[in-house]
């Protein structure tokens, strides 16, 4: 095996990638899935309440509302500009906080607070901004709410469905880019005879197979990380997330190489992916339905790569909590490597006999 020859084959595959529909599909799919699932279940296009503030002092309200997630705050200098933006529906609401407003509230002077509402704004945004502002004024005043609100959750208090769907999106990124791209690429080389053309040069079968595997690892890693980032779960521990994603991509690409070596032609390759699809996809479903017995997911090979991504990326755990899963994933990858090497000898004999 030669690193130089592997790199030459890999470089060729990367250069030809944009000319391949399957390669392009692998890149587009995670973005398309994220978009579709976020539109259906998430908050991608939910408009955030937009509040404009003209603060002549340093009000606690301005500071607090600026720190809040979910409110889009614009600070302005000019009252006329604020009114214009609200009138033109560029802001849902506008707030004018005169100098010394906070002190006046604390002293019980009941100062006038000008609060403009855009006529075309969403009712939900108006309510959010109004209640938020009144709550903050009450905090400045130091008074307690006149009622005790008893909050009762209906349904599970678990993660929102948009987050529970992340394993599904990551699964597709890993399987299409990691499994299908190298597998179909290898089958295509067999069908077109270009694999045989390479094998009568100094290139060895192992050079080609490792290059295809690296293609899958690279593409699946990039697409899985992009999918996590798109769904907002690539947290501050991004380095650890990337490590578990690379392990996942290694296993996925090894499956792809085995499928590619085994399949004689494209129709068999598609048959393998379609036939094995539910077997591979199964562990991702258990994250969508957390009430199902979770131990069943462990029976499927891709559980050992989805679970570390879930724990480290979505749940924010450290990589140390999933070392067992990662070790199993690496073990499966090594076993697939041995299987690929064994199948490769059979593949070469089949090609020569054609």
């Amino acid at each position, binding site marked *: 095996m030669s690193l130089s020859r592997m790199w030459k084959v890999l470089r060729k595959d990367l250069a030809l990638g944009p000319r391949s529909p399957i390669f392009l599909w692998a890149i587009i799919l995670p973005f398309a899935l994220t978009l579709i699932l976020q539109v259906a279940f998430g908050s991608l296009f939910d408009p955030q309440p937009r509040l404009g503030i003209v603060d002549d002092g340093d009000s606690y309200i301005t500071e607090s509302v600026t720190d809040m997630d979910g409110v889009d705050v614009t600070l302005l200098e000019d009252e006329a500009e604020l009114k214009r933006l609200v009138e033109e529906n560029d802001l849902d609401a506008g707030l004018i906080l005169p100098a010394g407003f906070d002190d006046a509230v604390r002293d019980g002077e009941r100062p006038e607070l000008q609060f403009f509402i855009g006529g075309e704004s969403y009712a939900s945004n108006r309510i959010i901004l109004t209640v938020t502002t009144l709550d903050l004024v009450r905090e400045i005043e130091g008074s307690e709410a006149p009622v005790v609100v008893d909050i009762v959750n209906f349904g599970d208090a678990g993660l929102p469905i948009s987050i529970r769907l992340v394993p599904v999106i990551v699964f597709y990124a890993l399987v299409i880019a990691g499994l299908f791209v190298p597998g179909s690429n290898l089958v295509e080389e067999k069908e077109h005879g270009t694999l045989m053309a390479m*094998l009568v*040069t100094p290139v060895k079968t192992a050079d080609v197979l490792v290059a295809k595997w690296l293609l899958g690892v690279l593409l699946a890693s990039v697409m899985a990380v992009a999918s996590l980032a798109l769904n907002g779960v690539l947290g501050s521990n991004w380095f650890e997330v990337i490590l578990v994603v690379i392990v996942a991509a290694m296993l996925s690409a090894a499956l792809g190489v085995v499928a590619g070596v085994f399949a004689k032609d494209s129709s068999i390759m598609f048959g393998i992916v379609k036939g094995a699809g539910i077997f591979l996809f199964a562990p991702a479903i258990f994250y969508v339905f957390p009430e199902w017995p979770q131990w069943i997911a462990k029976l499927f090979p891709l559980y050992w790569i989805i679970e570390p991504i879930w724990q480290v990326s979505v749940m924010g755990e450290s990589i140390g909590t999933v070392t067992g899963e990662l070790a199993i994933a690496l073990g499966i990858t090594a076993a697939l490597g041995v299987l690929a090497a064994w199948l490769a000898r059979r593949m070469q004999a089949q090609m020569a006999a054609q």
Partner: protein
Amino acid sequence: MSEPAIQVQDLHYAYGDLQAVKGISFDVQPGEILGFLGPNGAGKSTTIKMLTGQLTPQKGTARILGKDVTKDDPEVQAQIGVCFEEKNLYLNMTALENLDFFASLFGIKDADSLEVLRRVGLADRAKDRVSSFSKGMRQRMMISRAFINKPRVLFLDEPTDGLDPVTSAAIRKTIKEEAERGAAVLLTTHDMFEADELSDRVAFINEGEVVALDTPESLKLKYGTRSVKVRLRNGEDVREERFEIDAEGASARLAELAASPNLMTIHTEEATLEQIFIQLTGRGLEG
């Protein structure tokens, strides 16, 4: 005589119960073109596959540049060029990209791929994708790819199969140039004219065995008959007379016909390689 570039001794290969190659032996010297002549299924391609490392011989020995082919030595692979019968090019790559890629696999850093394309008349299409090429152009690409590493041993499997006469002639010219450069060429073909024109020696392969191996001239002398065909005007018609040169009274008859006022043409004729093949095997080359 220098060491043969290709040495094959008692080579055997079977696909299951089908014995494709049964004890083939031959050698090819540097600069020599050996024509491998035989019908489909005779064992020609199986022999090439063993010599290029695609199949492992089940019995016998095969050496390329003195090294055992079963050792899978990259140094040997770097010295061979293969033109497959199947046009296995990267269709999504340009002609230049195809050659540059294969040159890189041979470890050639500054390959003059454009010059190689110029030799086969494809320089003006260097930046076009191979998918847009005609059958003849793809075949010329196959030849140019086999030449990209300036190989010391060339395996050419039906290099002009199905091509027009002009393209075929151009390809034959480049094959001769490679042999003149010093490459040993194993040319597999079932085209007797191509084998006759290009080959220094010809091996007849039938049912996995070499049934004859010699220069085309020697084979014709050994197995063929020399004859003369004379065409004479006969009123409104044309009459043909054919007789063997070596037959008794042939010289006198030829002199008589040559003096005839009705003489139109005289042609000498010799046996073709196909006729000799049929004579030796009882079957034609197209079978």
